[in-house]
């Protein structure tokens, strides 16, 4: 019954060496780009100073040899912004991977079943509340009402979409997509209506909708960070289920998967990571679509490598895009990701057509 001992070993998944190389390269890239992001800007900070400031703040070591303004720039502005880019990019990367696997749709992105529309409605409503109500609504633990309602709106919408699409025999993927589309359209109409009545708050609304990491702060990181990291960890330990779903739901069930339960859990986790990210940055397109897609083409569909890689390279891409957006005079990062991401994606699409003949 067993293979002869002389048989050559058969690789059953991504090898340890290859995975280490892919992920290690990503982490090195991330550190380099992060360092560049912290030091580069309208007022430059020497790398040595930046490192010393971070060490001083974290560990309380080293004599203070830098101007106070450098410390503000590094510690209060750029470092939270770079870390927010990493977190949001990582969350979008792995949520995109999970939605593409769950929905078996290469066009799926983390926002596809309602996160973006729900978060947008929540955020826009929060932006307008002070204007609509006679009293101002305060923040909570350093989070503004905008962040809280964006998070709740994103997550809540996915739960509603799922409940609507859920039938007696399960939740068909097509129904999920259609329900997500319909409810997103409904909420988008709400956003448009609010924009129409927003008056002089329109600029703030548009700015949020375009997506930006400019609002990153330590309290916001402390809110989104654990949510994204924990949901990632819970997604990656479900790699067997995600791999089984590559074969379709029926065959996944034949392989022992509780398909409907797995779909519910994975949807909730991906929506959690996405909504936490949206609360920090607003909606940023293309990262969650392009990164998993590209990595799947490069390294194959096995989620043991694909999920961590999507996390690392999603972070790399967003930090890089934010750096570019900042250096280009502060254009919204969401505009830049779409501007670069869309043509790149089209090129990829054409290339795959050519390769297939």
């Amino acid at each position, binding site marked *: 019954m067993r293979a002869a001992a002389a048989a050559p070993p058969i690789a059953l998944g991504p090898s340890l060496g290859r995975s280490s190389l892919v992920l290690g390269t990503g982490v090195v890239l991330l550190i380099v780009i992060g360092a560049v992001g912290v030091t580069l800007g309208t007022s430059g900070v020497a790398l040595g100073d930046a490192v010393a400031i971070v060490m001083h703040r974290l560990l309380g070591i080293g004599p203070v040899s830098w101007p106070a303004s450098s410390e503000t720039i590094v510690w209060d502005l750029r470092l939270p912004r770079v870390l927010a880019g990493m977190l949001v990019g990582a969350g979008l990367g792995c949520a995109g991977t999970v939605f593409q696997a769950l929905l078996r749709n290469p066009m799926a992105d983390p926002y596809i079943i309602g996160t973006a529309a729900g978060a947008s409605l929540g955020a826009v409503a929060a932006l307008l509340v002070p204007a609509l109500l006679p009293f101002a609504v305060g923040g909570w633990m350093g989070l503004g009402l905008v962040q809280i309602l964006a998070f709740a709106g994103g997550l809540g919408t996915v739960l509603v979409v799922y409940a609507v699409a859920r039938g007696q025999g399960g939740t068909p993927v097509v129904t999920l997509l259609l329900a997500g589309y319909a409810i997103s359209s409904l909420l988008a109409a709400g956003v448009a209506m609010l924009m129409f009545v927003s008056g002089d708050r329109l600029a703030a609304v548009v700015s949020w909708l375009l997506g930006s990491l400019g609002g990153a702060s330590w309290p916001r990181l402390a809110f989104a960070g654990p949510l994204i990291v924990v949901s990632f960890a819970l997604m990656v330990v479900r790699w067997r289920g995600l791999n089984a779903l590559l074969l379709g739901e*029926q*065959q996944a069930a034949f392989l*022992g998967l509780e398909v409907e339960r797995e779909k519910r859990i994975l949807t909730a986790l991906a929506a959690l990571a996405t909504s936490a990210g949206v609360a920090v940055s607003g909606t940023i397109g293309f990262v969650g679509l392009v990164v998993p897609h590209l990595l799947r083409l490069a390294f194959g569909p096995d989620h043991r490598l694909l999920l961590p890689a999507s996390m690392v390279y999603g972070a790399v891409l967003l930090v890089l895009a934010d750096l570019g957006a900042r250096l280009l005079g502060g254009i919204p990062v969401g505009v830049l990701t779409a501007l670069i991401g869309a043509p790149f994606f089209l090129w990829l699409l054409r290339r795959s057509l050519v390769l297939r003949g």
Partner: protein
Amino acid sequence: MADPAVELIGVSAGYPAVGGRRRVLDGASLRVDAGEMVALLGTNGSGKTTLLRIVAGTLRATAGEVRLLGRPIHDWSRPEIARRVAVLPQTTDVPAGMRVAELVALGRIPHGRSWFGADAGDADAVAAALRDADATELADRRADELSGGERQRVLLAMALAQEPRVLLLDEPTLHLDLAHQVALVRMLERLRAMRPLTVIAVLHDLNLAAAFADRSLLLHDGRVVAAGGAGRIDAALAQRTFGVPLAEATAADGSRVLALAIANRRESPKKNEPNADC
């Protein structure tokens, strides 16, 4: 007496439909002993696939009892069932960019215990499955670039990697040419000699069923009807079920076969029929 591998007692099952449920199985009973190979025949929509899903535990019976290896099937958890029953379905998505060995390794999912990676047992099981399904030389090929016959062998290897006691095949010869159909059924015969397998295969070809199965069963009106033992199919019963004329003939080796008895209409063309040449 040993427990049967699969036992259905008065099983009814169906699917949600507009205005209630569409019942496909209606009091079906079936007993397949360990090591048997049974062919399942029936018209389209007669419930063959539904019956396989019941035996695989992915569809629950609305009435009746389903037993697997002597225990009520839902006493087992889903992974426990998948370690005992494997299914070669009619169609399966083959993920793009996956190598054959990786695809076959998906059959180890129900056995998975380690957090990541595969253990030595997994590697052995995959190698044995590839060998037994005659697919070892395909191990490093891309799974989405295989021919129909190769693909079927690889998917069979994936099912074998589950190390099942019961193997269910849903029209495994669909889309295969005659040579590949016979090769596949021969492979099942060899597999049964090598592994302690009970096989239930949905087949369309009555002669293939008669030639290779220990027994043939016919699904009719939601029930299971015995259609013949090894080497023969009840011609009258098959004719009634499928509603086509069948004729018995004797093959070159002297065995009895059934043939579709439809006369060649080209031999007596009607005068007003258009000429085929124009």
